[in-house]
């Protein structure tokens, strides 16, 4: 499991939920303890040399694993898609990156397509709405799998919001460089969450979640923002 730097440092509870949901699917989970970050922030900022160093380190750490499962669409995209671009001029590293790319999966897609775990034995009594994280949706083409998982959770009602596939305005560095534009985009997302009537906003990416949750708490909204893994854990249901 690559837990991602955001989960590691800010949202460890998502990491725990990820381990639990994988174990429940009968997966033997290992956490290579040297892991830090996939390098996406540097790559997206244009710092490719710096990103390469971190990506190479990532290859060293994760190469031995049979599968690399990531609870984030954008980190999984970095590893699966953008490492190949990063190493396009280095045949040796490119080959290693290609092999790793094939074995890397985002959590929900792994649970459904690899672990064959569509009918997850979990219950969570709440009305939720789902935000399609951009990289998960458009780099990896994953939109059905998380919905399938949620539909199999007992007591969970999925109420789709309008434009669930529209960006929340995070974009990593973008939200720091252009906080006003980012916030204006986020407002639209918050409105759509609100009008979905859901109590919980679910996404598969802690970047989006951090962003959306940050505005929810600032504005005193009553809704919560949660990672999908947190709905799938055996001890998830608090109702």
């Amino acid at each position, binding site marked *: 499991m690559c837990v991602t*730097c955001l989960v*590691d*440092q*800010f*949202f*460890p*509870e998502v*990491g*725990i939920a990820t*381990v639990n949901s994988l174990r429940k699917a009968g997966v033997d*989970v290992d*956490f290579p*303890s*040297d*892991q*830090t970050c996939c*390098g996406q*922030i*540097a*790559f*997206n*900022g*244009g*710092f*490719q*040399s*710096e990103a390469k*160093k*971190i990506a190479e*380190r990532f290859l060293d750490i994760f190469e031995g694993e049979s599968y690399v499962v990531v609870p984030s669409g954008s980190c999984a995209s970095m590893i699966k898609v953008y490492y190949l*671009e990063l190493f396009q001029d280095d045949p040796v590293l490119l080959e290693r990156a290609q092999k790793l790319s094939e074995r890397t999966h985002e959590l929900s897609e792994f649970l459904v397509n690899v672990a064959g775990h569509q009918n997850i034995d979990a219950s969570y009594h709440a009305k939720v709405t789902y935000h399609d994280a*951009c*990289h998960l949706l*458009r*780099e990896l083409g994953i939109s059905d799998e998380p919905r399938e998982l949620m539909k199999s959770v007992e007591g969970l009602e999925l109420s789709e919001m309008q434009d669930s*596939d*529209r*960006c929340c305005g*995070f*974009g*990593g560095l*973008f*939200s*720091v*460089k*252009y*906080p*006003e*534009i*980012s*916030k*204006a*985009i*986020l407002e639209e997302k918050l409105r759509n969450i609100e009008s979905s009537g859901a109590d919980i906003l679910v996404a598969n990416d802690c970047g989006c979640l*951090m*962003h959306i*949750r*940050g505005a929810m*708490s*600032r504005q005193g909204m009553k809704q919560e923002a949660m990672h999908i893994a947190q709905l799938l854990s055996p001890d998830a249901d608090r109702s």
Partner: protein
Amino acid sequence: MAEVKTAKFKKASSQAVSDPKLQNTLEHVMGHFIEARAGAIEEFGDESWDQMRERASSIKKHALENLDYYLDLIDRTIQKNGGHVHFAKDTQEANRIVLDIAKKAEAKRVIKSKSMVSEEMGLNKALEKAGIEPVETDLGEYIIQLADEPPFHIIAPAMHKTKQEVSELFQDWLRTAPTQDIKQLCIIARDALREKFSTADIGVSGANFVVAETGTVVLVTNEGNGRMTTSTPKIHIAVSGIEKVLPAIEDVGLFLRLLPRSATGQRITSYNTFVSGPKFSTDEDGPEEFHLIMVDNGRLNLMRDPEFREALKCIRCGACLNTCPIYRKVGGHSYGWVYPGPIGAVITPVLTNIKQSKDLPYASTLCGACRDVCPVKIDIPKLLLKLRHMAVEGDSSQRSVSWIERLMIGQWRKTVSTRSSIERATNLARFLQVVVTKKGIIRNLPLPLISGWTKSRDFPALAPKSFAQLWQEKFSEETDG
């Protein structure tokens, strides 16, 4: 060349997001375009639509890879049809060619149908300076000409103007009575333009496509002004970017299906005009002279790089603008030149000045929505990433990223290079964050570059223990055992 104000992106965009009237208009119009597009492509199904895009992309790619051959062919076919072809290295040269033709014809008035290349050229200003009256005849372009503004959107240049504002412009310039009836406003413009059509010496049009095989300029319009512009005056000048080439006439059909559907959500536009030269000697009317000006203006800089070359496939439909979360908030004028939105953020820096336009490639969340709607499959996020890479590691004419950002990323890289250094750094931060943390959240993070975030959003505090620590405590023994 039209004035380049890309350096003001930050200021202009922050003004735009705080303008409630503009936000309202953007939401309304963009929403309409997106809905219309979805409706217009529905009949094909995802798979066929994708095949059409793929085919269009490969036709464009082929045309660009053999551009020298096709430009030469255009030169020959148009001459054979009795027209003249001019090649202009930059906008200055393109303007001079137009002015030379105008002077020779002793032209006093030029009517124009919509052309983005002529916007690049700043042709209206150049004509005015030479004492020639330019009149835009596309309704949107006419409105922004009266308002003396650049286009706000590639296909809807005056979308930011309300009925009220248009009425006020007409009152000022045409001395008409105030009205907010759109039909009435159209009638006013139509009356004013009718007289210009019948008295103009030259018609200047753009070109949606230039077909090499037959020497044909194809215009896709809705108002009929394009056909008037290309048929009423004695001289027709078409201005086109060199990338608008299509190899053969049978290629056009595919693009006539893709373009209006992607742009306005129409299955076909009201007028598709094919012009292959001046009138035949047997024709009773039509222009006696036909000129095509093929403008480079930096496009060869895009051509030279196989990745940037992709951007020249663009058919200017505007779909990427409509779907872009950034454009939908900052609007067209923020981008500071002729082409706004995602495609503008890619081509403007290369066509104008990379350093001066340094903010554009970063004005994106890299969400990829633009790539998904592009009818010729331009991978815009990839090109934005390339420009960002150039801003960091390019040559001195490209590097624009500040030392403080370099320092921060360098420091970040060192920190994430070993597990022990990330533990050290985050433990220190855990200790320091106590000062700004309340109930696990940070409401104001007084750090350079980041403080803007917390103006409208809370920032999470670092968790008391990292996942790595929790794993060690909770799970590692189970795994080992």
